[in-house]
């Protein structure tokens, strides 16, 4: 059945507690809107988060939810998804929660292709703990914990996810609610793990980090929209992406044969091209691709787990514990035993 919900059906009575102006508000609105649009019963959604500003998210979405512990949401969500294929399980995490302490659970959930929709709010900072650099912060960033500038070379979340065998990888940005919802739609339709990096502005500790793809001026030149089946061009068509010597390269459109321009195909089985596109930027500092990098189908972990159970059951019939216990060799002591001995010392 589909219900006609409005966004407010997915709002809770809990007061939203982010700093005024935080990008999290926009993402929350986009997600609530999207959920309402699905018309799927509210009770079938579960939102699991870790710890961080981003991870407060579940309190504000009127579905089932868990605000768990730092970095562990993907593991907890795996327990939900693999035991309850009837649910739609979402993970909300941050660049610290998801890529720092939670990095291992994230990459393992992705390789297993557990049916999870993973939204990573990347503000390139630790917000809740008041502003330390994160695994996505740029080198040289000065923060409370890096007064002389960070010396940590950052992850490229899209590259990392692709290297971890993710079957669906995308990137969007808080400010663009339409783009966000379009991506959510594809992620939701995808069977298996969907990883979405969402650029999210932390106006208190890392303001304007994404200005290159959000600024009225800047985005014109720097936002590269990846659209399935379309050639990868940007800057109003002035610039294009081609493959040169196995690497994705930005050129003036005018300077190349249009046929040389990469036509984006998110369904390529081989992630090499998606990976190459992810290398066009190493952070939102210049031309940066947004959209779906990869979207391929592969058996999902939860489906496989349940298939094995169904098969075993149909093969061997539902388990009979008494039979199982007696399966390893038994012997019987008769009512009256000739050689009756009492108990002695030993």
């Amino acid at each position, binding site marked *: 059945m589909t219900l006609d919900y409005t966004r407010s059906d997915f709002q*809770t009575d*809990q007061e939203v507690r982010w700093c005024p102006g935080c990008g999290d508000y926009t993402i929350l609105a986009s997600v609530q809107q999207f959920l309402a649009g699905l018309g799927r*019963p*509210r*009770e*079938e*959604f*579960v939102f699991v988060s870790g*710890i961080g500003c981003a991870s407060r998210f*579940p*309190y504000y979405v*009127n579905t*089932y*939810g*868990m*605000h*768990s*512990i730092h970095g*562990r949401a993907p*593991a*907890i*969500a*795996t*327990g*939900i998804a*693999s*035991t*309850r294929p009837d*649910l739609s399980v979402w993970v909300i995490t941050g660049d610290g929660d998801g890529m720092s302490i939670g990095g*291992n*659970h994230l990459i*393992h959930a992705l390789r297993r292709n557990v049916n999870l929709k993973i939204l990573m709010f990347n503000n390139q900072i630790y917000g809740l703990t008041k502003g330390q650099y994160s695994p996505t912060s740029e080198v040289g960033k000065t923060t409370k914990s890096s007064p002389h500038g960070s010396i940590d070379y950052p992850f490229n979340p899209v590259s990392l996810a692709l290297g971890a065998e993710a079957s669906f990888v995308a990137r969007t940005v808080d400010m663009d609610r339409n783009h966000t919802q379009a991506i959510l739609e594809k992620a939701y339709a995808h069977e298996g793990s969907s990883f979405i990096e969402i650029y999210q502005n932390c106006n208190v500790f890392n303001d304007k980090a994404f200005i290159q793809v959000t600024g009225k001026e800047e985005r014109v030149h720097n936002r590269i929209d990846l659209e399935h089946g379309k050639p990868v061009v940007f800057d109003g068509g002035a610039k294009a992406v081609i493959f040169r010597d196995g690497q994705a390269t930005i050129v003036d459109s005018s300077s190349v044969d249009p046929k040389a321009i990469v036509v984006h195909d998110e369904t390529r089985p081989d992630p090499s091209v998606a990976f190459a596109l992810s290398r066009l930027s190493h952070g939102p500092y210049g031309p940066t691709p947004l959209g779906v990098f990869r979207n391929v189908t592969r058996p999902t972990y939860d489906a496989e*787990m349940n298939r*094995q*159970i169904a*098969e075993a*059951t149909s*093969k*061997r019939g*539902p*388990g009979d*514990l*008494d039979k*199982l*216990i*007696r399966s*390893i*060799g*038994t*012997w*019987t*002591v008769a009512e009256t*035993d000739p*050689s*009756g*001995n*009492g108990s*002695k*010392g*030993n």
Partner: protein
Amino acid sequence: MAEATEQSIPEREADASTTEVLDRLVIRFAGDSGDGMQLAGGRFTDASALFGNDLATLPNFPAEIRAPAGTLPGVSSFQVQIADFDILTAGDAPDCLVAMNPAALMKHLKDLREGGTLIVNSDAFDERNLSKAGYDSNPLDSALVAGYRVIEAPMDELTKLAVKDTGVSGRDVLRSKNFFALGLMAWLFHRPTQPTIDWVNQKFSRLPEVAAANIASFKAGYNFGETTEATKVTFEVRPASLPPGTYTNITGNQALAWGLIAASEKSGLPLFYGTYPITPASDILHELSRHKNFGVRTFQAEDEIAGVGSAIGAAFAGSLAVTGSSGPGIALKSEAISLAFMLELPMIIINVQRGGPSTGLPTKPEQSDLLFSLYGRHGESPIPVVAAATPSDAFLMAIEAARLAITYMTPVLLLSDNYVANASEPWLIPDLDSIPEFKVEFAKHPNGPDGKFLPYMRNMQTFARPWAVPGTPGLEHRIGGLEKEAVSGNISYDPSNHQLMTDTRAWKVANIASDIPPVVVEGDEDADILVLGWGSTYGANKAAARRVRLAGHKVATAHLRHLNPFPQNLGDVLRSYEKVLIPELNTGQLLRLIRAEFLLNATGLNKVAGEPFKVAEIADKIMEMIK
């Protein structure tokens, strides 16, 4: 089956003049990891079980996968005690030792009791093996073996001979050596031979020549006994008068796994086991992963944190959620267990204890995680702790852990250890229907004013909160690790609320004491001294008490299966004895709890040597205290 019968060994007339009848017998098989001693021991055990003896076993293998052949670290052993009455341990000193090579002799001879029987594979006592074992001359020609009845058998040679027509060849030939030893033992101790032959035929049905070789070698060993001049005396242990019923021989890990499946049926919840392999807990995963037709889901996670995390998710989603590990892995889980405690979701955390600290002694038993179980989490997070006393008890304690977890909506810690996990004992198969159910009622309807659902509105009897699983319309709710407001479950930083919730959580767990059996005193209730135990010391404590009684003294014993909360009558019981002895395989952890709880000056007997208590150690201590 015909094939088997025609292979079978003719019954012999036990010649009384040369047969000593014993009430009990301790046998230890020792050899190289590659010599198949665990298998030989297992067969000997099963044959004795089917024969009707009571028995208890104690396997002991090296931490290495397979240390170099012939070396001391490579020695693997298996001890079994069989008796014509109900026994409690695998015994202290063996009456008979099988040493397949010099290293095995070097490592185990010291344990063989005076005048005991020593069976050696003389072919293995060459230069190389002797030096690997650290002998500079052959001990068999020395005073070292004086005082024992030594039976030397050239097992390599005789095995080769025996199997030469069976089709096996090369390195595989000597693989049958252990069956030679087994055959010799079967003769020496009047074990039924057919069960072993049948087992071999079934086990190797796909490899008929291997089956033939093993049986040939088994017979060769048996015949060697009959024909050898080495000994004319044989031994017999008659069947025990165990309570009537059907028995199987079971290890603790297997019993625990089956107990979880039983709990799943009794609760009506699908079983989920999220874990990461670790010795000695891995076999629980192995066993459960074989029973998918029971609806059992096993998840081999990337680490222990993901293991417990997945269990928390499964619990939230409505499964009987279990995670299991050993010390190092439990340490990693502690932050998440604290979350489960805060969420008040039911789940079981299994800790199969091993020697610590750190990586410690991964294949040895120890009880050093008791205080860790009670206090190994940050913040005020008391969780129920229960412990299995014997291999078969693990079946019941798994069910009990599930009952408490579900009834009280709380994580429960279930303690086992490497001894309970790998030792085996005959288990009188219970009537499963007689085990009470504890079917779960998920919340289905709002429990608050104007259709609101209040996830922390409690059952006034158990103080448990409602369990509302995703998919239930109208009960959508959010829970988390921040302190939450009573009843509503919303985040709350209010001081008095934190006090209230802290007290409530503690009270809920403490109140479980009213729902568990009282501690039972066994033996001489009117004794001056009580021996209090928990976990795997059960058998040794009771056996020691028996010895003391045989020596004409009075002693009572009691065993704790619930470590938190304690049974309500524990304090009164302890105070009613002049002296209380608490033997533990740690530095005195239960002792510390008893002192703190009851201000009672109990005495500890503590051993941290990576091996169980010898009955004598406890008996001597009791005697010392009685004097």
